[in-house]
């Protein structure tokens, strides 16, 4: 990743800058242009990419995860070129939701998507994305657009005749350059948005034939195919800067679902006996290498509750950048705990990367719980654990 100017954090450094300014009578604090890091294409001023913003801590280019609450907990968003690992909850109910939020955010901001799954067809996953809650300007244009399409141009309106001469607005995909949107989980994303977006799908049963014999020493066959697919897309579409004539830069959002489950051909979920030939760790290492050299961000969900070998879980966590764990209350004794009755589970921010920094931006609130309301997925801090301990 390109090194960025370190924007100082904390009050101590701001104070020292003020002191320096007053001493010299000329400010040494020079205003820089809107410098965003993440690529080094050689141009002095980088055109800002929609849906991204530079981090206020370390200048990294951030993308939103689709949940503004989660963005805040991760220090502003997910850094471009990093991996967000979601540790699935036990019955895999809430982790697909975070996965879909990430992809929906990509569609709304116009990023390119790459969806990989061994369980569901990526086209089906895209159909189930939540609908974005647009603000009033975008919504009015959408409604007028629909109404203009329905009425013919020559029909005189009897009641709403004042609207007759309004200009027709062409149907165009709603794209927004804001950072972080809200979604309505109870509705599906409109079909036009999906069709207007660019996405690539990788569905494992279609890509490999099951009769192939795997070489046990090398990487899992499914993982090899996936890595080749991702590398191909990054190279062909120029996310790694290999097409300098391409003016418009965009972010590639990669989503990989249920990595490490037996459906990917991996055996870490049912045997403890994984020596150094663990395919998943090699895959993550290579994936991170691909991501670091391109303008992409990746979300992976892993069923860590099924992984038998604890050492593998630790290795997988270390090889990812940001790790978020979900623990749902279903079936556990916490379900009947009256202090947790408002929530559906706990969310643990297990790791936040230190990118060009010595410290990482860990949120102050340690006990976080989530709740899936009918339309929204909310994350709140809860201090109940402290209370419980006191009793």
């Amino acid at each position, binding site marked *: 990743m390109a090194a960025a100017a370190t924007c100082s954090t904390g009050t101590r450094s701001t104070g020292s800058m003020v002191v320096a300014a007053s001493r010299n009578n000329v400010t040494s604090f020079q205003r820089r242009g809107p410098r965003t890091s993440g690529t080094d294409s050689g141009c002095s001023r980088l055109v800002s990419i929609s849906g991204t913003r530079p981090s206020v801590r370390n200048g990294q280019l951030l993308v939103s995860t689709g949940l503004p609450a989660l963005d805040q907990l991760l220090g502003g968003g997910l850094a471009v070129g990093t991996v967000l690992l979601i540790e699935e909850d036990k019955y*895999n*109910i809430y982790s697909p939701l975070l996965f879909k939020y990430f992809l929906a955010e990509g569609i709304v901001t116009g990023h390119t998507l790459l969806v990989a799954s*061994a369980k569901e067809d990526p086209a089906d996953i895209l159909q189930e994305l939540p609908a974005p809650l647009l603000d009033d300007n975008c919504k009015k244009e959408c409604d007028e657009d629909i109404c203009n399409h329905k009425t013919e141009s020559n029909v005189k309106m*009897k009641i709403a005749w004042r609207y007759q001469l309004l200009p027709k607005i062409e149907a165009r995909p709603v794209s927004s350059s804001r950072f972080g949107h809200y979604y309505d989980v109870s509705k599906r994303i409109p079909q036009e948005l999906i069709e207007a977006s660019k996405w690539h799908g990788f569905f494992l*049963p279609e890509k490999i034939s*099951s009769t192939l014999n795997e070489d046990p020493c090398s990487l899992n066959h499914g993982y090899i195919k996936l890595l080749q697919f991702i590398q191909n897309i990054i190279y062909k579409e120029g996310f790694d800067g290999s097409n300098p004539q391409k003016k418009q830069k965009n972010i590639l959002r990669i989503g990989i679902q249920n990595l490490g*489950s037996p459906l990917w051909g991996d055996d870490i*979920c*049912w045997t403890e006996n994984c020596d150094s030939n663990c395919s998943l760790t090699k895959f993550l290492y290579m994936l991170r290498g691909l991501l670091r050299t391109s303008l992409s961000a990746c979300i992976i969900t892993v069923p860590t509750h*099924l992984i038998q070998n604890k050492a593998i879980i630790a290795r997988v966590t270390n090889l990812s950048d940001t790790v978020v764990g979900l623990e749902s209350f279903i079936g556990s004794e916490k379900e009947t705990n009256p202090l947790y009755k408002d929530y559906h589970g706990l969310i643990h921010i297990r790791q936040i990367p230190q990118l060009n920094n010595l410290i990482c931006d860990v949120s102050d609130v340690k006990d976080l719980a989530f709740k899936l309301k009918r339309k929204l997925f909310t994350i709140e801090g809860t201090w109940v654990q402290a209370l419980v301990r006191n009793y």
Partner: protein
Amino acid sequence: MPSDGCSNSLAVKAAAGAQFLGPNRGPRLSKNPRAPLTEVPTTTSAHPGSPCGSASAKDSVEWEGRSLLKALIKKSALCGEQVHILGCEVSEEEFREGFDSNINSRLVYHDLFRDPLNWSKTGEALPGGPLEALRALCRRTDPGPVTIALDSLSWLLLHLPCTTLCQTLHTLSRQDSCHGDSSPGEQVHVLGLLHEELHGPGPLGALSSLAQTEVTLSGALGQASAHILYRRPQQRPSHQMDPTTHLTFNLRLSKKEREAKDSLTLPFQFSSEKQQALLCPGLGQPTSHIFYEPDAYDDLDQEDPDDDLDV
């Protein structure tokens, strides 16, 4: 091997009830798995909303699950579905015992018990062993809803690597979407019997993550009970019902009603010149214009102007 001779109350109740819960209920756990089973939720497997997926029944030595499997098979057969059985642990005669003849005629039995490795070479056994048998089931192209029962998953786990088994089961239960158009009747239900004590937590967890419904048999004091875990499938609105059908009020206009509606005078209906003036405001209009249009209630009397009022 599971032993017979436990109480059959569960089998009876399961035969009366049904196996798949309604699609709108979330993951539901029975409150007390040790309590005797009082009721089994009753929706039929041919319900159009029922999930297409796999269900596994976990049993143990004390509480055997084959009778539950047979009860579910009987229910499917009575609903008119075709049932394929991959039998590995008991012989075909023993499995078919207890079914009457019309159900037996609907069962297609694939026998892996008698000669799984095809040693006798008589040509009766399924070629290729268990994996090929499963793959042949995947490639089957009969139309209509079908139930595939695997007796048992434990036997298959001992003979196949877990990864291969999981992938093949996934392909089995995804069959309906491979066949192009989506019609709700073309659903594949996969039932599997798993003996809990034979496997470690790894394979059990892996298979559980695949199954949509899981029934764990246990019991206390001679009473069997079932602990049902159901994962709600993704809501997939594939058939949008037309909301204007089946209404208690009328949304359609007859011709006379339409004419009456068109000829109605609206209270704020302006003459066309006023409309045009309002729609296209001219640029060179220094003064504003007043357009007066009397409606039905205005009383214009030319002989009584207001000019003579002293107000």
